[in-house]
């Protein structure tokens, strides 16, 4: 306290020194000419934080240079559902990220406008503002939601457009220039503003009303099978599920650690995942932990969509785990090929996992296609 006061005095002293001098030597600086301010920089919109998050985890991350606005969200929502962004005007973000599938699709690999397919499963989108490390995609190659949104538009196997062409299409549209003006105060459309608007819309895609969420809030009782499954989720013993180190807990209801792991899918890798981005061979075969929310809508599973059903996923963790140089030490039953769950254990675990799905999320009117 004492030192703080002294520092303040020092600053005051400095200011006085300068003031004393400038008053004698320098003409007062005229105030700057008023600069025309952009009109319509948007109406601030507070991101809804559900109670199960509020009571347990850190606040959402919203970049200071892209605050949520009513107009920005509306623009992003329209763009998300509009095929205008694709090279031939036939494909929108929502074609591979559809609300009924929790903003993924039901295919192992999605097909782009030139009928090409990639080697990764389309990722579900929800609770993106709670992705602490800010790394998006299965391999973490985008460092923000905004950066992520820039990717698919120009990816040759996805929307296969160029940004100059996409911006020209938007600029020539009858509605978009005024919507950009409302959201960002400019009618000059550029790719960064497109990505910012889409990211704003995506941040509103909050899912937190599953049966388990309502159980956490004391609003309902789980079935005995669901409760048994939750204990199996937390059971690290052979025969248990041993899921919690990567997939959250009642205190971390994101149901992901937002980190990257090799979960023992393959002995050798055809896709290096995170390692291809970092260049570190110790990261080869690592992919982002997907949330366990909304599994009822997001099949198929894994970064390459190799498992068509949840039963196949549980069989993998039970009997299908294989060693590899970068396998995560958390796969602690890898030596026995997995946790060796019994059929009834798997059935109970599956019941718990499905209690994390949120039917209100996929039908939320605010998230649906706004275009006529």
């Amino acid at each position, binding site marked *: 306290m004492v030192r703080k006061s002294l520092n303040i005095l020092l600053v005051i002293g400095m200011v006085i*020194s300068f003031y004393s001098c400038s008053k004698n030597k320098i003409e007062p600086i005229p105030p700057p000419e008023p600069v025309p301010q952009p009109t319509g920089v948007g109406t601030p919109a507070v991101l809804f934080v559900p109670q199960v998050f509020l009571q347990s985890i850190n606040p959402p991350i919203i970049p200071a240079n892209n605050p949520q606005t009513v107009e920005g969200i509306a623009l992003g929502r329209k763009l998300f559902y509009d095929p205008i962004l694709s090279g031939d005007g036939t494909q929108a973000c929502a074609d591979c990220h559809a609300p009924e599938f929790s903003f993924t699709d039901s295919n192992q690999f999605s097909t782009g406008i030139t009928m090409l397919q990639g080697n990764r499963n389309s990722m579900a989108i929800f609770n993106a503002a*709670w992705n602490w490390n800010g790394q998006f995609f299965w391999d973490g190659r985008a460092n923000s939601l905004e950066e992520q949104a820039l990717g698919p538009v120009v990816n040759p196997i996805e929307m296969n457009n160029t940004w100059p062409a996409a911006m020209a299409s938007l600029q020539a549209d009858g509605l978009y220039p005024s919507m950009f003006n409302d959201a960002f105060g400019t009618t000059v459309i550029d790719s960064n503003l497109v990505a910012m608007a889409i990211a704003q819309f995506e941040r509103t895609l909050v899912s937190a009303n599953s049966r388990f969420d309502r159980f956490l809030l004391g609003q309902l009782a789980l079935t005995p099978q669901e409760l048994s499954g939750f204990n199996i989720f937390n059971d690290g013993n052979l025969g248990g599920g041993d899921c919690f180190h990567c997939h959250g807990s009642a205190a971390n209801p994101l149901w992901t650690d937002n980190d990257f792991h090799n979960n023992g899918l393959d002995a050798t890798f055809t896709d290096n995942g995170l390692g291809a981005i970092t260049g570190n061979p110790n990261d080869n075969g690592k992919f982002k932990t997907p949330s366990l929310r909304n599994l009822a809508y997001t099949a198929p599973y894994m970064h390459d969509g190799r498992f068509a059903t949840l039963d196949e996923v549980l069989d993998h963790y039970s009997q299908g785990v294989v060693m590899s140089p970068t396998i995560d030490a958390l796969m602690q039953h890898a030596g026995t090929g997995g946790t060796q769950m019994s059929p009834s254990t798997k059935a109970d675990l599956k019941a718990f996992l499905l209690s994390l799905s949120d039917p209100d999320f996929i039908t939320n009117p605010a998230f649906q296609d706004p275009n006529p």
Partner: protein
Amino acid sequence: MKLITKSLLGIFLLGTLFTSCSKDEGCTDPAANNFDVEALKDDGSCTYDKLPEEVHEESHITFNFMHHFDGIPVTAANFNQFNFVTANGDTISITKLRYLVSDMRLYTTSGDSVMMNGYNLVDLTNGTGLSYEAGESDLGAFAGIGFNFGFDTTDNAGNYLDLNSANWNWPVMIGAGYHNMQFEGKYKFNGADSLYAYHNGTASNMGAHEQNHISVRLPGIALNEHNVVVTIEMNIAEWFRNPNTWDLNANHSNLMMNYGAQKMMQANGYNVFSLGAVSQRK
């Protein structure tokens, strides 16, 4: 006193920078009764009600956490390499190391302690929490420095949003609360890679939960300056050595639900930490 002198010196030096400005002389001490805002050169005319009081001096304490394996420095840069040999002769690599420290404290010579509340998650894997500004204390000599490895029973019952977000929780069925440590890697067994997950937290035995944190006490230090940086060193090798020579092939995984393993970790943990360099500056 030193800082007052420094402030006066600062004002004086700044004043001299502008000696080309036309200026009156006067009292230039803002703390004086007759402080003259226009004066740039002090003429010795300052008057005071009374002499400035003796300043009560404090020290800001920062803890740095350093890690080694019997003298080999360990950072994330030498993770994933079979660089280390345990007391049992197991050759190991490290893939993750993070742990919680709480209630940093200083023991006074009269037997009390000065608590610096709070906690810090040291994460060697991501390079976060390696430096922790714990708080303030009066200057002086202290008989010891200490902290808890993990949370004590009371703190372990709290709800910490940042730790929840870091997925640091310990399952309810084995005592709830939080991990003390997650320490993972591989060991060689018959030439092949095997996995270990040396996780520490509440010890649970047939439904009975037993606190398992470690109250660490290290030698005393003197706080002489306003900023003191205390280095805490972890010798990772000690987790495998004393009093329990750790056989990784017997205890490599599923240790969280293993009461005996948890208590052996606690016993070995008392020998893990030591006091490293202490640096002091104004």
